[in-house]
Structures are given as C-alpha cells and as structure tokens.
C-alpha cells in the first residue's frame, strides 16, 4: 500500500515538470520583453532591469529555466504587476473562498446526483428515468455563467430572497454554489445511472435477490458499493470542471476567489498573477486526483497495487 502511494506520488513528477515548462514557455511566447511583461506597463526602467537580473533573462534559456524552477520550488512566484503584492500572498488570501465554493458545490452535486442516478437506474425507462436523463442533459449543456445570471434574476431581482453577489454570510454562498454544482450534478447522475445499470444486471445482484434480500439491501449494499469506484473517479475529475467553472461563476457573483482573481489578472495583463493562479489550479487538480486514487485503495479491496 505504502509502495503504491509512493509510486503514485512519483508518477505526478513528469506532469509537474510539464506544467512548469508550459508556464515557463507561456511567458516567453508573448511578443516583447518578458521582463517588461512581468513588471507591467507602469514599471520604471530600474524595476524592469531588476526583474531581468532576478530571473536571469540575460542568460541562456536553460539557465533561465533553472532560475525559474528554483523560484518555483520555493513558491516564489514574483510580484503582481497590478498590485505589486507578492503573488503567493494574494493567492493564499483567495484560496479559502474558492475551496469553500468548490466543497459546497461538490457536496451538493453528490447529494443530488448520486440519488438521482440510483433512482434512474432502479427504474430504467420509467418517467422518472427520462426526467433525470433530461435534466442531466440540460445540466451539461447549460452555460454556467448564464445559469448564474438567471438565478440572480429570479432569486435576487424578482423574489429578493438572496443577495446578487459578494460575500459575508451563508446566504452569499447559496447561488454561486448551486450554479457551480449544476454541471457536476448532471455528470454524476449520468455516471451513477450507467454504472448502477451495469452492476444491477450482474450475477451477484441476481444471487442477492434470489437469496431473498430486500430490494433496498440489493441496491445499496450490493450494487451501489460496486458502482462506487467509477462514481468517485467522476467526482474527482469533475473537480477540474469546478475550477474552470469557478472563473465564470466567481465573475458573475463577484466572489473573491481564485477564479475572479484570474479574470481580473487576465483583464489587466498581470502575467505573474496569471501564471501563479494557473499553477495553483493545476496543482489543486493533480492533488484531488491523487486523493481520489488513494480513496480507491480503501473503497475497493480488490485493487492490488504492485
């Protein structure tokens, strides 16, 4: 088990190197002087020269990458061209807000998506199955930012029940997290339905039924337990959609998270911050999928890691 965990951790190294290369070349693909780009439009020649020296931009490209990596492993991501604050400080300040939104959204998605998928699979081709399937299709086709706008129109403008945006109380969390959850609910419901349909037609469920077990026990203890692995995988993978959706959702609801920070940084062409946020998003995504892989080991004793 420990061997597997270590092996799985090591397997992320090529991807991490890939991400660092991607971000490294992203800046160098830009037209013009990277030092000028990093310093921002308002920088003085001294500041630009300072950054050039700090990042080793006057040295060969492989040396530049070494310098860049030495900064990266120390989590020194430079200063924001917009606010002049260290990038890491701003990211740490915003990270909890995005995590909060993502966790509430994924919880909502599981609470609605998994039961919907189970009901759908238990009664295939019934009206409730068609309803769930239809809603799931709607969910994955819905532009998340439009859903957010429409929820604002209904619950903030017309009904005046909830705030249209901002932060400060639990009411502020409701609309953005529901908006963010919609797509993931749909995906989880579809995946739960298809895997449950598969496990419900397996021999072991027939055996369970023929033993005289109640349908509830068959569905929950036998079928659902075996369908959990693909469902957990989808939840992990959908975390990525949540991060992408966070940029749009946080923009709609003026939610002070990483997504909003990325949007503001792109608008202001604040490249150190863009690099930083994208790096954190990549790391978060890798981390969540790592955790998902570890959960497998606990959920499914059949999995042997050699």
């Amino acid at each position: 088990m420990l061997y597997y965990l270590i092996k799985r951790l090591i397997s992320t190294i090529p991807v991490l190197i890939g991400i660092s290369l991607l971000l490294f070349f992203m800046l160098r693909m830009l037209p013009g002087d990277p030092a000028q780009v990093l310093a921002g439009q308002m920088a003085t020649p001294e500041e630009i020269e300072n950054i050039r020296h700090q990042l080793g931009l006057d040295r060969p490209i492989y040396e530049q990458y070494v310098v860049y990596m030495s900064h990266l492993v120390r989590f020194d991501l430079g200063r924001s061209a917009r606010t002049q604050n260290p990038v890491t400080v701003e990211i740490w300040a915003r990270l909890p807000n995005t995590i909060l939104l993502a966790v509430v959204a994924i919880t909502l998605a599981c609470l609605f998506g998994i039961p919907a998928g189970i009901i759908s699979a238990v009664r295939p081709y019934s009206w409730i199955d068609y309803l769930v399937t239809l809603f799931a299709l709607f969910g994955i086709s819905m532009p998340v930012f439009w859903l957010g706008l429409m929820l604002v129109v209904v619950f903030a403008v017309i009904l005046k029940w909830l705030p249209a945006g901002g932060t400060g109380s639990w009411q502020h969390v409701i609309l953005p997290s529901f908006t963010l959850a919609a797509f993931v609910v749909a995906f989880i419901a579809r995946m739960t339905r298809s895997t449950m349909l598969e496990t419900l037609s397996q021999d072991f469920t027939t055996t369970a039924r023929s033993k005289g077990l109640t349908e509830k026990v068959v569905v929950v203890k036998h079928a659902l337990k075996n369908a959990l692995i693909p469902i957990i995988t989808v939840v992990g993978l959908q975390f990525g959609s949540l991060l992408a959706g966070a940029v749009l959702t946080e923009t709609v609801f003026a939610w002070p998270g990483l997504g909003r920070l990325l949007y503001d940084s792109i608008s202001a062409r604040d490249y150190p911050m863009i690099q930083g946020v994208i790096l954190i998003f990549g790391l978060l995504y890798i981390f969540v999928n790592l955790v998902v892989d570890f959960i497998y080991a606990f959920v499914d004793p059949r999995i042997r890691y050699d």
Partner: protein
Amino acid sequence: MTEIKEDNVCQSGERVTENRFGRIWAKLKRNKVALVGGVLILVYVLSALFAPVLFPGSPSAPNLMKSLESPTLKDPLGTDELGRSILGRIIYGSRISLIIALGVVFVGIIFGIPLGLISGYYGGKIDFGIQRITDTMLAFPGFLLALALVSVLGVGIKNTVISIGISMVPLYIRLVRGCVLSVREEDYVEAARAVGTRDVIILSRHILPNVMVPITVQTSLSMGTAILFAAGLGFLGIGVQPPTPEWGAMLGSARSYLFHAPHVATFPGVAIFLAVLSFNLLGDGLRDALDPRFKI
C-alpha cells in the same frame, strides 16, 4: 467536458463498410432524441446561412432611441443597451458560434489524429513523449487551458479558435491512440505489413477507417463544448470582441442591465444552451447507435 470512452466504440477488427454506416444511420433515425438534436443543428445552420435574409440590415448598427426595449412584435426578443435587435444578433451570432466550433474541431482533428495515430502505431519513445505532453495538457481542465492560451495569444475569433482547438487536441490524441492500440495487432494490419505496405498507407487505409466512427461522436460532442467555451471566453471579455454579435459577449454586456432589463441576458443564453444541447443530443444518439451498452 464530455469525453467518450474509446474501447467501447472502437470496433476492433471490424472494417468499416458502407453497410455498417447504413446500420448506424438506421439506428440513428429511430433515436428520436438524436433526431431532435439533428433538427436543431439544422435550424442553426440554416439561420447562419440565411442570416441576411432572415434579418436584413446590420446586427451591429446602434439605435439609441430603442435602447433596452422589452420584446415587441417588431423585435420579438427586445433590444439591447444600444437599441440593437437581440433576435438579429442571435441569428448572426449563430454564424460566429458555428464558425468557431468548426474551426476548433478542425484544429483538434488536424493535430490530434496524426499524433494519436503515430503515438499508438509506433509506440516506444515517440508514444512516451506524446503521452507525457498529453498528460500535462489534461492536467488542466480544458477551459482553463484555453483561458491560459488566450491570455497569451490575445482576443479575437482566430485566437479563440486556436486556444480552444489546442485544448481539444489531447482528447483526440487519447481517443485515436486507444483505437489504434486495439486494432494494431489485427490480422489485416499484420498482413498489410507483411506484404511491405508503407506505414503511411497502413495508417491511412487500414487503421484510420476504424477510428472514424468514434471520432465522429467525439466531434459532435466537441462542437458543443467549443460553443460553450467560446461563449465563456466571450462572456469574460477575452474572446470575440464587440460589436461582433457573439452570444457569450452579448451576455457579458447584458450583466450590467440585469436589474432593469433581464430579457437582454435571457435570450442569448437560451441560444447557447440549445446549440450545445443539440450537439450533445446528436453525440449521445450517435454513441447509442454505435454501442447501445454504453449509455451515460
């Protein structure tokens, strides 16, 4: 993003024949949901083609006297902040969205298919290299990758297509590679190799036809995703720029008038939703027609 599972749809060993396409078409015709998707797509295509007939005049010409009017008989979907017909802009917007979607899948296919074929067929170091690049690209959610690329390349239709297109490439590579691996060792490929057929011919005549069906499904789903991503970039103000009538950008500017004129934000969203839905319906239908066991 919707991604298809290659091993379920790659028909290992079975050559694609006209007969097989006939069977798929027959199944597809029976699938009412897919038909609805197909008809909706046709409506979008026709409105894109005949936009000047359906809506004479410029969709971008402002008329401030009619600013933010509610739906009327003359302007069935109302007007925006500059007094422009929302219906007219949605009709012209279908051109932009379809062009972007086609461009995106073109970029995805033109890079993804050859790289996937090479990666799967040759294996070894080439495969390892291509797969590590694919892993890295898939380490970012597609929309974030497109966002990162567009922040470097800049705004506009061309850069929107390139950015989203590149984010689609790894999906095609994975799909094609998976299919190639499943047919690479088939007898007819072995036979072709034994008689000295060149690799290019084996790849294009013997392997590629087996990959075409899953690619068709993925392309339908990717068109929907591309429309969604492009609208997202437009909404954030870093995709297609005003005054070009792009659905996402229309929603972006409608945000400021949400309290006074919610209709401005309603209809472009419906247009995006139905367009994405129709491609997803068709994609799902195609997949069901190919393999009824695989239905998510």
